[in-house]
C-alpha cells in the first residue's frame, strides 16, 4: 500500500521544505516498524521545484492472518483479514492510516519545530493514492474529497481484470488530489477518509476513537456535507462489534466450503433492500391485519412461523389474549435479533412464559407445532423454492393443523406501483417467486381443498382498483366438521392417557 504527497516550490520557498514539515529527511529512505508491517518513507524526487514524499507500507500477509489465531476463525474483526488472499498488502486502507499516524505523528498534530510558520500555510499539494478501496466507488470518493477545497479531485475506477472486461470495475479507485492546502489538513483528511472509504477496519476499536475522530476532523469535518456518513463509517466498530458477536461462523464455513460469499447464505436478516417499508409502513398494516384476523378467529395460542426479527411476536405480546406465542425461524441470526428486540432476558417471568423462540424449518414436519389455535406465515412462502412448497404445505396444513392459518405474500401485480422498484424485479433479493392474486388464490384454494380447510382472502394495504393491494392475505380455517375431528385427534390421545391415569389413581 502506497501513497505520495508532492509539492512544488521556488528558491525562496523550496519544495524540499516538505521534508521538514513531515519530519522526514528527503535524502534518506527510512523504515519504521508498525503493528502490521514496516512503513517506509522515501522521496522519489526532492528539488527546490518539486518534492515528493512516498509512504510505502509492507504488510506481512501471513502475520495478518495468524495474528488472531486461537480466537475462532482467525479471530480477526474484519472477515477479509482471515484470508491469505487479501488486498490489505496492496490497498490503501486503515492499515495505511494507522501507519500514517505513527510515521507522520508530528505533522498530523500540526507541529514543526524547524518551520513553525509553514505549518499554518497552504502549500500547492498533490496527493496520489493509486489503489484506494472505496465502498461507494468513484462517486463517493469525489463526494468526500470534493467539498474539502481541493482544486482537482481526480478519482478513476480500477478495472477488476482487463482480461475479463465484463466483470466491470473493482472497488479500487486511483485518487489524485491537487490544490492549495495545509499539509496538516491533507494528512488529517486522509487519516480519516481512507478507512471511511474502505469501510472495513482492521483493528478492534478502543473507546478513544471518538476523540481521535474529533481531533483529526478539526476544521473540516463539522461542515462536511457527508459528515453523517463519515462519522458512522469511521465509528463503524460499534456495529462491527455487534455483528461480530452475532457472526454465525458455522454459516461462514459452509459458504467457504461451497466457494460462496458468506452474504449469499447468511442473508436472512436484511431489511435494507426491503423497498416496502418506505412509501407506506406496509409491515405495520400487515401486522394490524394479522392481529385483527387472529382476534376474530379467537386464537389464544399462536405460532409465528418464520418470525424473522420478531416484530409480530412483539405485537402479539402486547395483547394479553394471546396466551402462548411461539416464534419459529430457520435462521439463528434472526432468532438472536428477535430475542434482543424482545429483551427476552430482562422480561418478567410471566411475560416471558408466554413467548418461546426456537429454530425450526417448515421443510420438516414438527411435532412441537401440533395443537395450536393459529399459525401465521407472514411473508414466508415466497422465500421458498416453488418445488419445496409442498413440504411446507404438508408440515403446516397436514401435520401441524392449527385451526386457523394466515398466509401473507406480496401481490406481484402491485409491483408496478413501487416507484423505486425496477420493472420485472422482485421486492426482496431472496424472493424466489412473487404471485399474482390469481396465482395465490389458486394455490390457496388447492391447499384448502386438500387438507380440509376453508379459505378467505383479505387485502392488506391500499386496494388498488387495477392491480389490487400490495400484500395479499389468505385466512384458512378448518372446515367445521373437521374442527371437531382435529380436536378429537389432538386431545383424544391425551384424554385416553389421562383417563388411564385417573383409573389407576382411583385403584390406588
Amino acid at each position, binding site marked *: 500500500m*502506497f501513497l*505520495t504527497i508532492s509539492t512544488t516550490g521556488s528558491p525562496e520557498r523550496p519544495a524540499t521544505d516538505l521534508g521538514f514539515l513531515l519530519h522526514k529527511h528527503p535524502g534518506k529512505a527510512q523504515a519504521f516498524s508498525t503493528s502490521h508491517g514496516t512503513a*517506509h518513507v*522515501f*522521496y*522519489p*524526487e*526532492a528539488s527546490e521545484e518539486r518534492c*515528493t514524499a*512516498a509512504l*510505502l507500507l*509492507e504488510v506481512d500477509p*501471513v502475520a495478518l492472518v*495468524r495474528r488472531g489465531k486461537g480466537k*475462532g*476463525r482467525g479471530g480477526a474483526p474484519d472477515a477479509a483479514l482471515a484470508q*491469505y488472499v*487479501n*488486498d490489505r*498488502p*496492496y*490497498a490503501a486502507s486503515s492499515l495505511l492510516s494507522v501507519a500514517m499516524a505513527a510515521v507522520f505523528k508530528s505533522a498530523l498534530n500540526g507541529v514543526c519545530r524547524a518551520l513553525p510558520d509553514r505549518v499554518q500555510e497552504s502549500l500547492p499539494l498533490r496527493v496520489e493514492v*493509486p*489503489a484506494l*478501496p472505496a465502498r461507494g466507488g468513484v462517486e463517493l470518493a469525489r463526494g468526500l474529497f470534493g467539498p474539502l477545497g481541493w482544486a482537482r479531485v481526480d478519482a478513476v475506477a480500477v*478495472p477488476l*481484470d482487463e*482480461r*475479463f472486461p465484463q466483470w466491470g470495475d*473493482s472497488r*479500487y479507485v486511483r485518487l489524485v488530489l491537487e490544490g492549495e492546502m495545509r499539509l496538516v489538513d491533507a494528512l488529517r483528511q486522509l487519516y480519516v477518509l481512507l478507512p471511511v472509504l474502505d469501510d472495513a477496519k482492521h483493528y478492534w476499536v478502543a473507546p478513544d476513537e471518538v476523540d481521535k475522530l474529533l481531533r483529526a476532523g478539526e476544521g473540516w469535518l463539522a461542515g462536511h456535507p457527508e459528515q453523517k456518513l463519515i462519522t458512522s463509517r469511521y465509528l463503524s466498530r460499534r456495529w462491527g462489534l455487534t455483528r461480530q458477536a452475532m457472526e454465525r*461462523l458455522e*454459516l461462514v*464455513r*459452509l459458504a467457504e*466450503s*461451497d*466457494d*460462496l*460469499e458468506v452474504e449469499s447464505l447468511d442473508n436472512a436478516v436484511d431489511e435494507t433492500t426491503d423497498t416496502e417499508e418506505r412509501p407506506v409502513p406496509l409491515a405495520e398494516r400487515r401486522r394490524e391485519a394479522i392481529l385483527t384476523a387472529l382476534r376474530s378467529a379467537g386464537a389464544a395460542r399462536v405460532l409465528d412461523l418464520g418470525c424473522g426479527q420478531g416484530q409480530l411476536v412483539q405485537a402479539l405480546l402486547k395483547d394479553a389474549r394471546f396466551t402462548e406465542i411461539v416464534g419459529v425461524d*430457520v435462521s*439463528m441470526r434472526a432468532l438472536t435479533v428477535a430475542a434482543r428486540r424482545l429483551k427476552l432476558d430482562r422480561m418478567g417471568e410471566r411475560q416471558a412464559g408466554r413467548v418461546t423462540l426456537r429454530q425450526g*424449518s*417448515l*421443510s*420438516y*414436519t*414438527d411435532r*412441537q407445532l401440533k395443537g395450536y389455535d393459529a399459525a401465521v406465515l407472514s411473508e414466508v412462502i415466497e422465500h421458498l423454492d*416453488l*418445488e419445496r*412448497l*409442498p*413440504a411446507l404445505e404438508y*408440515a403446516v396444513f397436514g*401435520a401441524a393443523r392449527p385451526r386457523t392459518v394466515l398466509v401473507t405474500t406480496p401481490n406481484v401485480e402491485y409491483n408496478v406501483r413501487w416507484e423505486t422498484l425496477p420493472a420485472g424485479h422482485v421486492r426482496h433479493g431472496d424472493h424466489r417467486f412473487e404471485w399474482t392474486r390469481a396465482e395465490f388464490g389458486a394455490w390457496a384454494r388447492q391447499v384448502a381443498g386438500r387438507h380440509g380447510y376453508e379459505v378467505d382472502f383479505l387485502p392488506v394495504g391500499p386496494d388498488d382498483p387495477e392491480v389490487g393491494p400490495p400484500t395479499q392475505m389468505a385466512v384458512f380455517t378448518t372446515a367445521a366438521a373437521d374442527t371437531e*375431528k382435529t380436536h*378429537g*385427534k389432538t386431545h*383424544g390421545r391425551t384424554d385416553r392417557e389421562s383417563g388411564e391415569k385417573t383409573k389407576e389413581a382411583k385403584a390406588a
Partner: protein
Amino acid sequence: MTTTPRTTGATRRLPVTDLSLVVLIGATGSGKSTFARAHFKPTEVISSDFCRGLVADDENDQSASKDAFDVLHHIAGKRLAAGRLTVVDATNVQSESRKQLVRLAREHDVLPIAIVLDVPEEVCLARNAQRPDRAGMPRHVVRRHRSELHRSLRGLEREGFRKVHVLRGEEEVAAAEIVLERRYNDLRHLSGPFDIVGDIHGCSSELDTLLGKLGYVDGAHPEGRTAVFVGDLVDRGPDSPGVLRRVMSMVAAGNALCVPGNHENKLGRYLEGRKVQHTHGLAETVEQLEREDAEHPEFRKEVAEFIDGLVSHYVLDGGKLVVCHAGLPEKYHGRTSGRVRSHALYGDTTGETDEFGLPVRYPWAEEYRGRAAVVYGHTPTPTASWLNNTLCLDTGAVFGGRMTALRWPEREIVDVPAERVWYEPVKPLTTEAPGGREGRPLDLADVQGRRTVETRHMGRVAVREENAAAALEVMSRFAVDPRLLAYLPPTMAPTATSREKGYLEHPAEAFAQYRADGVTRVVCEEKHMGSRAVALVCRDADAARARFGTGGAPHAAGGAGGPTGALYTRTGRPFLDDAALTETVLDRLRTAVTAAGLWEEWDTDWVLLDAELMPWSLKAGGLLRSQYAAVGAASGAVLPVAGEALAAAAARGVDVGALAARQRERVVDAAAFTDAYRRYCWDTEELDGVRIAPFQILAVQGRSLAAVPHDEQLAWLDRLVEHDPTGLLQVTRRLVVDTGDEASVRSGTDWWLEMTGRGGEGMVVKPLGALVRDAGGRLVQPGIKVRGREYLRIIYGPEYTRPENLERLRSRFLGHKRSLALREYALGLEALDRLADGEPLWRVHEAVFAVLALESEPVDPRL
C-alpha cells in the same frame, strides 16, 4: 401369575423376567441391600437410601423421602425406558409405595416382580445395631414394618405383581438364586432366514401357492427357512380350517412362527364360549368349523389352544426385525403389557370412524423412527412398500388382491395373486394406507439438535447442535428437494506438509502416507479446477417419480413432467439457477449413459455420480470478483506506481535497494497470482464452454458403487465421455502408482510436476481399491489432494512462496481436517448404502444432513 412354591432346604430358584421391575420388599434391616448386591449388578439396583443421600446428604434423613423417591422413580423410569432390568431397594412395605412402582412398570410396559424378604424381628434389629448410622433405630419401627409387610403379603398379586417370590427366614434368603428368563417375545437369537407371510383370511389355496413359490415343500423349507405368519389367518375366506391346519402343523414342527391377529383373538374368544358378534367374516369361519366337527371333533380344542398360546409379537434376528399383526411403535418392542398386546393386535386408532364406519387408523408408521424393521399386516394396501423401515404385508388377498410375503434378510417381496374376490371389501383398497401416501414427510426430529448417526463403516458419528442448526438453515433455504439429495460429497484432506524447498505440498508425502497405511496401489487423478457437482440422472421423469417420489409440485422445476434428476453443489444447492439448463445437462448425461449401454449393464433407472464442473468462474464468480480479482486489481494498480517511485528514488542515489528488490518480487508474485486464478475462468454461454469431469459413479438402483475399485470406475467413466457427442463431458487423466516401487513413485511425482508446471491444479491420490482399511481395521483416507505450487497462491496468497512465508505456513495442523474427511466419508458411504437398500427417506437424509452439518465444523479453511 406365579407364586413360587414354598420349599425348604436346597437352592430356591426365583425366575425373574430379563426385562422387569424387581421390587424388593422387607423391613429395615431385613437384608435387602445385601441380597441385591449378591444377585444383581450394582448398576441395576437403585436404593432409596442412596437417593436420600443424593438429595439430602444423609441416607437416613426421612424428611427427604419424598424427594428421594422422586429421584428413584426418575432413574428407574429412565432405565426401564431404555429396556434395562431394574431393582428397587427400598422397604416397600406400604401398599402406596408399591402402587407407584407397579404404575411405573406399566408405564414402561414391563412386568413388576416382587421379592419379599420376611426375616424375624430380632435379625433385623441385630443387623441395624451393627450399622452405626442405624444403631439408634427403635424396635417399634422394625415391628411396624413387619406388620405392614404381613398385611400386604396376600394382596401383592392383586396389586399387579406378575411374579411374587416370598423368602421366609434367613436360610431361604441365603439359599435363593435368581434365574433370568427370556421374555416370550424375545427371539432375537433366531436369525432365520425368514419368510414373513401377510394376512391370509382363509385363502388356503393362495397360501399353498405362495408357500410353494417361496420354496416350501409340505410345510417345510429344504434350506431350513422359517415362515412367520403375521396373523389374521382366519375369517372371510373360503377355508379358514385349512389355513389353520397348515399353520398349526408348521408351528408345531418348528418350521414356522405365528403371531395373533385381531381375527384370531376374536375366534379364540368365540371358542372359549364367550359371546361375540359374528361379523367381519367370523360367521364364515364358524360355519366352516362346524363342518369340521364331524370328522375332527378335537380340532376346535386344538385351535383354541393354539390361539391361546400365541405371543403378541416377536423380536427376531438380533433385534433387527419385529413381527406383529398391526404394527408396533419402537417403545413397545419386546415389552409385555396389556396395551402392547392390544396395540400389536389392533393397532392404534385416532378414535374417529371414516365414511365406511371403520375406525381411522393412526398413521404410526409415518412417525416410526426405530432401528428394527417392523413387518406387519392388518391394513389392506394395494402394494406392499416400505415406509420408515416398516412394511405392511396385507395386500388384500381375500378381497381379490394379492397374498404377499417378505424374504428376510433379503428384503425381497414375493407375492401371488388372489384366485378371485372371496369377500367384497367394505371400502376400496386405498392409497391412504401407510406407504401408499405421497410425500412421506421428513421430521425435524430426524435432524435437529445434537445427534449421532450410526454408520456401518465407522460406527457412531456425532453431530453437534450448532452445526446441525447451520445445516438446517442451509438445507431448508437453499438446498434442492431432499428427496433428490441422496448424497453430499465429503471434504478431502490435503497431503502432509512438504519440507521440499519451495513447496508446501508435494506428492512424496501422499505416497508415503498410503504406503504407511499398507496401500500399495494408488491411482493419481488429475484435479480439475472447477466446482464440485453431484448429478442424479434418471432415465426420465417417470423413473424419477417412481424412485424418488418427485414431481408432486404443481409448479415444479423441469416442466409438467417434473425433474428427471438433480445437479447440485457440495452444500446441496442447485448448481444452476436455471431449471431448464439443468435439465439440458441431465439430458446430455442421460444420452451418454444410454449410448454407453450402462442402464442395462447396471440394471438401473437412475445413476448418481460425482463430478467436477468447470469453469470455476461459473459458480464462484461472485467470490472470484470480490476476493481474487480484487487482489489482482489492487496489486496491479499499486505495484507499478510504487516501483516507479522507488526507481526514481534510487536514481537520486537514495538507498532503497533491498526494498526495491522485494517490490520487484512482489510484482512477479502478484502477476503469478493473477495468472493462477485466470486459468480457472472463462466465459460460458448456456452450456457452451461448460465442462463436466465425472470421477465416480456413486450408486445405481439397489447398489452403492462407492467401493468399486477406481480402475473399474474410470473405465465406466471413459465410456461415458466417449459416448457424449456434445463435448460436455471431459476425461480425467490418471496414473496408477505402486507406492512400494521407487521408480513408480518417481514417475508419479514427475507426472504431478509436469502437470502443475503447466498450471494444473494438482492431483488427487486415491487407493485403487477405493474403500480400504489399514491393518488396524480403520478406514484410510479415500483420497488425498496434492495441490500445485501455483494453484496454492489462490489459497495462501500471492507471496506464499517466499521462503519466510513458506516456513511459517508449514506449521499447519491436519489432524482435524483428516478426521473430518473420514467422518464425512463414512456418512457419505452410509447415505449411499441406505439409498441402495431402499431405506426410507429420513434415513438417507439423516446421513446426508450430517455431512452438511460437519462441513460447518471449525477447521482451517485453507486445507
